[in-house]
């Protein structure tokens, strides 16, 4: 600190007017005041919802196909790809009488995602070879206990089927 000050930012040195401080503080107040009349950028959250993009990585959904059959075949690829170990799958053979509900003879007996472990990275979606799991733009899932946030297959699977869709 003893050495002389080098000043590469000399051009930013204050003018006399600014050094007097009072005019400068007025200018600063002017900036703030100009913002006072601008449209507010904040939104009133629970009443007003922000628009999120369709790529948003939120709550998962397990898809059904056009005929309402479960797409998931219990291959456990998503479980393998998950960096947070949030997915737990028990796979098994489809019983004969339920065969019409599934696309192949294998299915996930239980399929659980721990929404509290999940980091919403989207790697499960990338890993799934059957277009069965997708992350949706839904982001409000608050519960009052941890157990309720372990989503089971019933919660995750969508109610009606639809055509396959490719998320860009």
């Amino acid at each position: 600190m003893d050495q002389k000050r080098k000043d590469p930012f000399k051009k930013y040195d204050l003018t006399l007017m600014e050094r007097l401080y009072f005019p400068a503080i007025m200018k600063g107040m002017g900036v703030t005041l100009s913002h006072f009349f601008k449209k507010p950028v904040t939104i009133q959250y629970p009443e007003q919802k922000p628009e999120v993009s369709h790529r948003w990585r939120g709550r998962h959904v397990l898809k059904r196909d056009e005929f309402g059959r479960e797409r998931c075949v219990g291959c456990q690829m998503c479980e393998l790809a998950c960096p947070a170990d949030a997915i737990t799958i028990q796979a098994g053979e489809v019983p004969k009488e339920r065969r019409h509900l599934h696309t192949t003879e294998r299915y996930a007996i239980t399929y659980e995602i721990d929404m509290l472990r999940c980091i919403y990275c989207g790697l499960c979606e990338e890993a799934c070879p059957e277009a069965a799991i997708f992350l949706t733009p839904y982001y409000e899932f608050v519960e009052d206990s941890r157990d309720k946030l372990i989503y089971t297959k019933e919660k995750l699977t969508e109610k009606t089927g639809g055509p396959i869709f490719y998320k860009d």
Partner: protein
Amino acid sequence: MLKQVIDRAIAEETALDERDLYDLNLGPSHPAMHGIFENRVKLDGERIIKCEAHIGYCHRSFEKLSEHYSYNQVNTITDRMNYVSSMANNIGWVIAAEKLLGIEVPKMVQYVRVIMFEINRIIDHMICNGILGVDAGAYTGFLYFMEHREFAYRIFEKMVGARLTTNFCRVGGLDRPLYPDFKEDVLEWIKPIPAVLKEFNLLLTRNRIFIERCRDVSAISGERALEYGFSGPNLRAAGVNYDLRKNRPYSSYEDFDFEIPLGGNGDVYDRYMVRMEEMNQSLRIIEQAAKNMPEGPWHADVPEIFLPEKKDVYSNMEAMIYHFKIIMHGICPPEGEVYQAVEAPNGELGFFCVSDGGPNPYRLHFRSPCMYYYQGIEELLHNSLIADAVLTISSMNAIAGELER
């Protein structure tokens, strides 16, 4: 004034009795610390006689964890290092992994990465300088910056689907194709930034109180900074011209025309000014990159490394086999090691990765810039005032997530 205080302090130091000193824990969760930093300071009145910086309070063992992760899964860890500029970390990591694998990604991917990197640099500097203002008692400028950071996050959201933990890019390309209006959105975003910076200058840079709070506070010489291993804006503020974007260009940085702002004293004011100037330069880079962005595929043509398109997986046998292979066996780079550093917003972010030919890194080390800044804190805070300590730490742009990994 300050100089006299410090001179007197140095003169008095020998006469001090340990018992007269006051111990203060500045951190781990102190309102003036941005993140979990643990500092124990010994005070004589308001003057810091000794500062002990403790590192490791929130260590999350990222390096060990990544030894069990595949190369793409490690990406999710890098998000959580410097969470202010997570995309910069993602990009740094994939560039390192690509270097290990020997992949050349298409020009378009490189340009998109540069754009995202520079947007991250701007928002990181906005936060750092804004917070510096907050610490000095000027809250307003920070809020004006937050507005534009929010708009940047909307671009991220459209691009990858997340705002903070982006998980952007995969080894070998982007994570998904660009959305249609990407270029327009980016150009739209940079348009108001110069005006915002001007406004911020009016509020803070041209404010006498702020300048007097910052000038000559915790100055460090260029040589000393180099000895500590400083990098990034903190090193450039000390007058050392070292920027990886110029010195060791990666991801097509050599294509762009920009300048490296340099400081001279390495004090809080110079660090602040270097960041303000860098934002202008980043705007130039973004504009050039967005305007000259070439057309092209969004990933390199490496079927054994990059996941095939979903459409093909369902219909094409070959794509399906590659898909299964990549997910089940992972990406297996050849045996060897690589060090790749990128100029992250707060300094040189390096990745040292050793591969034993398996699907997981054998050893991965993150060279996080904050680690080295934080070593210097003890010296910088020595004999400064407690109010300056807060400014010093926030001007270093140390991020707890990255410091302790």
